[in-house]
C-alpha cells in the first residue's frame, strides 16, 4: 500500500498543505488520472464512513420503529386462537343473531365509538424536553387524554409541530372539547402536511360524536380518495345514508 499517498490525501482534504505543496499536488492530479480517480475513491470512503457511523444511532431508532410498524401491519402478534366446536359455534351464531335482531333499529345512526380508533403516538421532536414529550406520549397511548391535553399545550408553546398539533386535536376530541378540537383540525386542514386529510376525518368524527350527521357527511365528502383510510370514510358515508 502506498502509505505516503494516503497521508497526503488526508492532509490535502483537511486543508493542511502549504500553498506550494497544494499547487504541486493539484498539478499531479491534473496530470495523473489514476491518482485523481484514487482521490475520488478516498473521498467516497469518507462519505460511506460518515453514512455508516455518523447516523448509526438514528438508523437504529428508525429500524426499531420500522419493525414495530411493519409487524403491526403484518399482524405478527398472533391472535389467540380459540378453538370452537361446531355446535358451540352454531349456538354462538344463533345467539348473535337473536342479539342483533333485538337491537335492530330501522332508524339506525352510526356510532362515534365504531369509528374512533386513535393511532399510537411515537414522538421524536427536537428542542422539547424529552420528559414532557414522553409523558405526553404515554398518557396519549394509555388513553388518559385529559392528562395529555395540558402536556401537549406546553409542548406546542416551544415547538409548533403539525404532528403534536394533530395528537393534541385528537385528545381534545376524546375529552369532548369540540370547539377547540375542531379549530385545531381546521388549522391542519389549511396547511399542507400529511395530517391534512386525517384532520378532515377527525373533524367529521367530532360532528358525528355530537350527533351532527349532516355536517359530518359534508366534511366526509371533502376527503380525498387518496386518504389511506378511505374505506372508513366510505363505510361511514354509507351508514349515514
Amino acid at each position, binding site marked *: *500500500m*502506498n*502509505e505516503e*499517498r*494516503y*497521508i497526503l*490525501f*488526508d492532509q490535502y482534504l483537511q486543508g493542511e498543505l502549504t500553498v506550494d505543496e497544494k499547487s504541486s499536488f493539484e498539478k499531479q492530479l491534473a496530470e495523473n488520472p489514476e491518482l485523481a*480517480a*484514487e482521490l475520488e*475513491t*478516498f473521498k*467516497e*470512503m*469518507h*462519505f*460511506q*464512513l*460518515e*453514512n*455508516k*457511523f*455518523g*447516523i*448509526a444511532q*438514528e*438508523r437504529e*431508532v*428508525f*429500524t426499531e*420503529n*420500522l*419493525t414495530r*410498524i*411493519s409487524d403491526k*401491519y*403484518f399482524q405478527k402478534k398472533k391472535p389467540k386462537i380459540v378453538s370452537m366446536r361446531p355446535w358451540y359455534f352454531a349456538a354462538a351464531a344463533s345467539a348473535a343473531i337473536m342479539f342483533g335482531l333485538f337491537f335492530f333499529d330501522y332508524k339506525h345512526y352510526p356510532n362515534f365509538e365504531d369509528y374512533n380508533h386513535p*393511532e*399510537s*403516538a*411515537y414522538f*421524536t421532536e427536537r428542542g422539547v424536553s424529552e420528559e414532557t414529550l414522553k409523558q405526553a406520549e404515554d398518557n396519549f397511548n394509555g388513553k388518559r387524554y385529559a392528562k395529555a391535553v395540558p402536556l401537549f399545550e406546553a409542548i406546542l408553546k416551544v415547538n409548533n409541530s403539525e*404532528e403534536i398539533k*394533530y395528537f393534541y386535536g385528537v385528545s381534545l376530541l376524546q375529552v369532548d372539547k369540540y370547539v377547540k378540537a375542531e379549530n385545531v383540525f381546521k388549522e391542519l386542514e389549511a396547511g399542507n402536511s*400529511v*395530517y391534512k386529510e*386525517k384532520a378532515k376525518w377527525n373533524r367529521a368524527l367530532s360532528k358525528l360524536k355530537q350527533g351532527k350527521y349532516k355536517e359530518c357527511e359534508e366534511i366526509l365528502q371533502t376527503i380525498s380518495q*387518496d386518504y*389511506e*383510510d378511505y374505506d372508513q370514510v366510505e363505510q361511514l358515508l354509507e351508514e349515514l345514508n
Partner: protein
Amino acid sequence: MDQNKTHPDQKYIDGLAANDSVIIEMIYKKFAPKVCMFITNNSGDKDQAQDVIQEILILLFNQAKANKLRLTCPFDAYFFLLCKRRWLNELKKSENQRVTIYEHVVSTNESAQDLIAQTEEFDEKQQLFDTMFQKLGEKCQEVLKLSFSLKTMEEVAAKLNVTYGYVRKKKSLCVGQLTQWIQEAKNFNLLKNK
C-alpha cells in the same frame, strides 16, 4: 414536460428520513398491498414480502439521509419496482426451482427508471463498502468507527489512549486500505465490462 421537478410524493422520502411514524404507517397502508400481492403471486409468502419491504425502506432511509434522494416520479411506481426487482433477485439466487413470473405490465416513465438505477447503485456501493470494511483488521475498524462518530480526532486519541499524531496517521492508512480495495474492485469491473 419537466422531469427534473421534485414530485409531491417527496413527502414520503422526507418522512422516512425524519422517522415519522404517521408517514411510515401511511406507506404500509397505501403501497404494501401491491408488493405483497406481487410476491405472494410469484413463489413468495407474506413473511418474505415483509422482509423485502423492510429492506427497501431501510435502503431509502439511508439514501435519503445521505441527501441523495430527490423523487421526480410518483412514489408508487418507484417503490413497487424496487421491491419487485429485489424479489426477482432473491428468486434468481435460489434459481434451482424454476419460476414463472406473473405480473401485470407496469408502465413507468424514464424518470422512474433513472431513479431506480440510482437507488440500486447506491445500494451496491454501500454493500461493497461494507464487505471491504469487514475485511479490515480490528484496530482499523475501531479507529474508523470512533473517528466518524466522535466530533474531533483529539477525542478519538484520548479515548484510545494514544497520541493525536498516531491516530491521524492510522485513520489515513485505514481509509487508504479501503480506498485501495475499492479501487481494485472498480478496475476489475471496468475490465469485465469492456
